[in-house]
């Protein structure tokens, strides 16, 4: 088998982080997934996924200073790493190839 592709959910999270640019905080990612992908995300699942992708080297984060609103707790800002971008590209190409030529089939009737 070729390289390890990120899971569907991982890809969505990576894309959301990219879209949010400098505003990629956990809560914002949740809102973005809800808005753009109509996907209601469990907080636990999101944190765990971010943790896993951090271990794989797809994302990294920096700490923002604490605000009183957060009861003095820090806030993490996420960023997609170059290798995260790399797997996203590979995955996109794979999907494009797979989708290619299927328009007639897919439009004709649901498979």
């Amino acid at each position, binding site marked *: *088998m*070729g390289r*390890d*592709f*990120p*899971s*569907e959910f*991982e*890809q969505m999270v990576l894309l959301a982080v990219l879209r949010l640019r400098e505003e990629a*905080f*956990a*809560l914002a990612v949740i809102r973005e997934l809800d808005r753009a992908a109509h996907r209601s995300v*469990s*907080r*636990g*699942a999101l*944190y*765990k*996924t971010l*943790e896993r992708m951090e271990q794989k080297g797809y994302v990294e984060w920096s*700490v923002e200073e*604490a605000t009183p*609103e*957060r*009861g003095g*707790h*820090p*806030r*993490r800002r996420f960023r997609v790493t170059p290798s995260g971008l790399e797997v996203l590209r590979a*995955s996109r190409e*794979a*999907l494009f*190839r*797979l989708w290619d*030529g299927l328009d007639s089939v897919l439009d004709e009737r649901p498979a």
Partner: protein
Amino acid sequence: MILPDGVVGDSIVGDAREEFAEYVRRGGSAPSLWYWVHATRLTVGYLVTKRRDVEMGTILKDLRFGARSLARMPGSAAVAVLVLAIGIGLCSFMFSVIYGLYFRGLDIPDADRVYLVYETNLQQDQSQRAVPIQNFMDWRERQTSFEGLLGTYGGTINVAGGSQEPIRLAGAFVTANTFSALGVPPILGRGFAEGEDGPGAAPNILLGYTTWRDDFGGDRSIVGREVRVNGEPATILGVMPEGFQFPNNTEVWAPVRDDALATSRADGRRLSVWGRLQDGVTRDQASMEMAGIARQLEQEHPEVNEHIGVRLYTPVEANMDSTLNMVFGSMMFAVICVLLVACANVASLLLARAAMRTKEAGVRVAMGGSRFRVMLPFLSEALVLAACGALLGIGIAFYGVAWFDGVTDPAVTGRPWFMRFEIDLPILAFVIGLTGLTALIAGIAPAFQMSRTDVSTVLKDESRGSSGMHVGRISRVLVTAEVALSCALLVGAGLMTKSIINLGQVDYPFETDRLFTARVGLFDADYPDPDARQQFWTDLTQELRGLPEVSSAALADVLPYGGRNTYRVGIDGVDYGDSEDRPSLNRVVVTPGYFDALGTALVAGRDFTESDDMGSEMVAIVNQPMVERYFDGQSPLGRRFREGASDTLPLITVVGVAPDLRLMGGQSEALGSYEPAGYYVPLRQKDESFMSIAALVRGERATALTADVREAVRRLDPNLPIYNVYSETEVIERAVWFYRVFGTVFITFGLSALFMASVGLYGVLSFAVSRRTQEMGIRMALGAASGDVVRLVARQGVSQLGIGLAIGLGLAFGVTRVVSVLMYQVDPQDPTVFAGVLALIVVVGVAAAVFPARRATSVDPVQALRSD
């Protein structure tokens, strides 16, 4: 707690606080509830996601997806469900039977410690000898392994008196400790007390539940009622619980009353001995102790106990022999094969679908799905199919088990009462386990195949999505195996069919529908000496002949297909080295006119007359097989033989030759002990207590005579019942149930296998065709005739068919060896059966191949080329 340490955990808590603050600011209601719900969801979500990739939700989703995608192809799904239902149904049916035979056991407390104790004589190849009552009493005194030994023998018990008709019941004579040793007390009244057996005891009885309910109206005041038991006054002591029929489908119990001192060990009563092991004593220890006692008895009484050993049997071991084990073992094996075929078919179907879904799997892999994750949908589909199949299968099994329980009714077959067949909890647990296993077997090949999908191959593949897979080879092997299995099972089924047809077409050499039969038994109390008995038999014959509906009547100790008695015979003038060399031949005791009553006639010589009695020369009529086998086909009239193993016994002179009246009944010629030769002797030169009536009626229906015969017997003795009232046709039916029942079972198995093999062949070929639609289109576009295309597709099917048949024929010869004991007058290598099976499989197989092939020719080239 479960959140990570340090800044990561802190930031998560911070996020939660921020969300909460946001919620409060927007004026959300019940903020504290909101907080707890979110905190819980957060931790639970974190925990669940932490552990595994696959959540329960995903599996359920896959199951739903599986069900939905199957619903989109209802045709194939229905076939798959049907195929699995047959597989699971037959397997569950057979398991119920096996469970009933081998595992259910006695329905008494601690049944696993109850054993039968038999004598053995390995020198004479006897492994289950009943025990002389004197030995039994010595055993009882000396042994310490059992809580108590009980002895029993079976016999007819007539109960008369009170207001109702005299009835004849299947009785057991038991030692007084029987019910306490078994741990089963009566539900009404009391059991036998200590000392209420042996010489001088009254023949008091306990009734079986069914007898009490049906023959005594369930009257609770029955206890203490005075009745006549086998002609003697007795009291009803009590009623045993429902279902208790120890030791052998027994309806009534009376005490063993033999006087052990009055007879020698060689001639006395013999008992079946049962015992319950003491706590902490193993079967081996008990066997050792009993073997030691047997050696003591061998020294003390060598005249009867030479070479006598002792062996313990569980009730199941005592009732099943190696033939039955082989029969049921091979039936179980056959249904497992049928289930495997079913799995192969469903696997084949799923493989076909898997091949069409290579791209779906490719996407899943590309999306980062683990191997397990990719396999899951295919396993789920198999599970959905298996579950539906199991539901239907339980229905099949339920019907089958009810049928089998009915046709093996203990009253007809002698099946022990504790071997019951029903679908209950252990069976359902088995079905559930089986379903899971089936799903796994059916789903694993396609699932595994999918998980090996190589993404880059799939992605590069410009053609149809399936070419990267080895689906074709696996499916072809499966189908070949199916053809082979169904060929083997069908040969068995074919032979069985022939056997059943033979049964229906037997040209019996005697009357059947018009022959009335019934049994009468005389008891010592009323008929104390041979003269009294002879007188009764003479009077009875006259009464019967006087009935207006009877054209002729006679008595015999056994009627054709009613059982057999064998005696060692020595032909006068033949030198027998050892008594073992003397043949064991069938003997029937008859009254004059027996052959007329059966509607047949002697081949040579004369019939018995009233003057062939104790005072005249001993005479016999031999049958034709005896003439052929033991008189070299020469006329035996005037020749003489001895009955028994000694040369000092009186000689019997042959006065007549009878046709072959099937003294072996329905027994198979495949049995080693098959011996059709036999002879008839006159009742007046013997002394019998039990005889069967054979009366040829003038009308068409034999049993119309029942009331007349009952009245005739009652005129002679008002306390005497007649029983086993059947026409000879029914007697035959009861004797050959074995062939009919097992034949039907095997035919069902064989047809199921054939159905499955054709489904498999059809499925694989039509899948192959659909995969090659494009190729077909091109061929047709380039001018191939439709015949060429049909040949192309059919060739693949035919080669699988051929290989499968070759293997199957080999298997079939093995099958015939097993089923030969179940067959009635069929050559196990019957060429017409083999040819018929071959033809059937070829026809079905070719049909299964031709339909997809024809579909291939209907491909529109334009459509085919555009399809990718």
